[in-house]
């Protein structure tokens, strides 16, 4: 008797429908691949970056996907280190989302550098004082951890399980997963933080620069904290989206509620810390360099004070307050509305810490802000990871037992 490729006891759509779904995503991937070809073949003149915008859309996309992929490390921390068993019902999905996010980040970095073939210099000739070096090392090693966390899930496929060695390997890897997860948490703490350090150490850029603790600017801690807070909300939201697309309940509500509660408190503490940081920066750090707060939020077509209000109040305090209340969590619309707001808040934060830093003029005789809009090549390659993620998650959902509660929640199959 042949073993089916689809896990036992669950129902999946027909092959034709599945291929059509993948085909649509593949078209978007192809568009991105064509843009990649243009960039690697003709160079970065194919983008809208310039000498004022050495960092632009891609660096934002990198910071964003890594922060959102933070759901993997924090869920791993909760499941394996703290021992919250309920989180294990979503951990497989968090891990695969993490793999998508981190591989995307590396791909985008490979596009962003002017000499991709020299990418290994960052390891070989490492400057240990550079935040980017720390990012590169921790990010690469952590991607290895994510793949290690993903392998046992992959080996759960019924056909692969038939091979006894893989059966044992998946079992043995599960057994010591806490060790890998703990290492992953350690690495994540540093690379999430170092990504915050990337703008925070720029003492020539008053909009980005922050004082800090030893060699780490405050943004180091704020970035880690915000990724840990919002990452699980992104995992939960994507899981909910998968439920909507597959029209199936895949995870019990109490899993969502638990993640929402933890994220809510994390978000609240983060946004309080962020507010204190902003107040100190606006009243002490920036004025010491000759800048008033409103210098950064006026005389330009895009960045006004509302962007700060949106980040801190609308997409920070508001979702945090919703998520820490039981009523807020138990109302699905409020819960996922708050999650989306928090994700938008995180994206705004990463955007301003990259793009607004580049936009603000520094020399008084250069009054004009440097404005930038991305080229189609930058947009296509930034959308590519989304389509690639859809394909990878679809394949994983179809062929791997991603959700331990699926059978129980869908007994009719």
């Amino acid at each position, binding site marked *: 008797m042949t073993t089916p490729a689809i896990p036992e006891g669950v129902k999946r759509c027909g092959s034709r429908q599945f291929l059509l779904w993948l085909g649509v995503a593949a078209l978007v991937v192809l568009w991105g691949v064509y843009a990649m070809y243009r960039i690697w073949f003709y160079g970065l003149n194919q983008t809208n970056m310039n000498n004022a915008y050495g960092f632009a859309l891609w660096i934002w996309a990198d910071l964003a996907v890594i922060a959102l992929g933070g759901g993997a490390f924090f869920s791993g921390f909760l499941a394996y280190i703290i021992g919250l068993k309920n989180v294990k019902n979503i951990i497989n999905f968090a891990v695969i989302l993490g793999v998508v996010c981190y591989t995307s980040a590396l791909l985008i970095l490979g596009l962003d550098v002017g000499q991709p073939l020299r990418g290994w210099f960052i*390891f*070989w*000739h*490492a*400057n*240990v*004082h550079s935040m980017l*070096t*720390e990012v590169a*090392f*921790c990010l690469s*090693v952590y991607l*290895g*951890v994510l793949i*290690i966390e993903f392998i046992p899930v992959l080996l759960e496929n019924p056909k692969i399980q038939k091979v*006894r*060695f893989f059966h*044992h*390997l998946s*079992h*043995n*890897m599960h057994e*010591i997963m806490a*060790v*890998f997860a703990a*290492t992953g948490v*350690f*690495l994540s703490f*540093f690379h999430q933080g170092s990504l915050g350090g990337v703008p925070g150490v720029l003492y020539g850029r008053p909009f980005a620069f922050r004082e800090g603790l030893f060699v780490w600017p405050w943004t180091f801690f704020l970035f880690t904290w915000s990724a840990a807070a919002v990452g699980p909300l992104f995992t939960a939201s994507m899981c909910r989206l998968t439920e909507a697309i597959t029209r199936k309940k895949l995870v019990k509500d109490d899993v969502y509620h638990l993640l929402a509660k933890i994220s809510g408190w994390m978000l609240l503490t983060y946004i309080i810390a962020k507010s204190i940081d902003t107040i100190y920066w606006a009243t002490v750090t920036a004025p010491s360099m000759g800048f008033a707060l409103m210098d950064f939020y006026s005389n330009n077509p895009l960045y006004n004070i509302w962007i700060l209000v949106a980040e801190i109040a609308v997409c920070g305090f508001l979702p945090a307050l919703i998520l820490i209340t039981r009523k807020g969590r138990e109302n699905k619309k409020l819960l996922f509305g708050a999650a989306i707001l928090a994700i938008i808040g995180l994206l705004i934060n990463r955007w301003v810490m990259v793009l607004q830093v580049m936009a603000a003029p520094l020399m008084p005789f250069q009054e004009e802000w440097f404005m930038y809009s991305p080229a189609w090549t930058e947009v296509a390659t930034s959308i590519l990871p989304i389509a690639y993620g859809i394909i990878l998650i679809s394949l994983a959902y179809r062929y791997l037992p991603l959700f331990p509660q699926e059978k129980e929640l869908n007994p009719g199959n």
Partner: protein
Amino acid sequence: MFPFLYEWHWDIGHYLFMGALGYASAVIGLGLVYCIGKSIIDTAGEDENAGH
């Protein structure tokens, strides 16, 4: 990255950075070796049992 390279300095920054990185890599590497080794032994044990 290595002491024989131009940019290497014997300072606290390099000890901490490379030390932490080496430690993490060692934990991951040894963990993997353990899993693969134990799986080979487990599989071989099964084959032996099947033979008897």
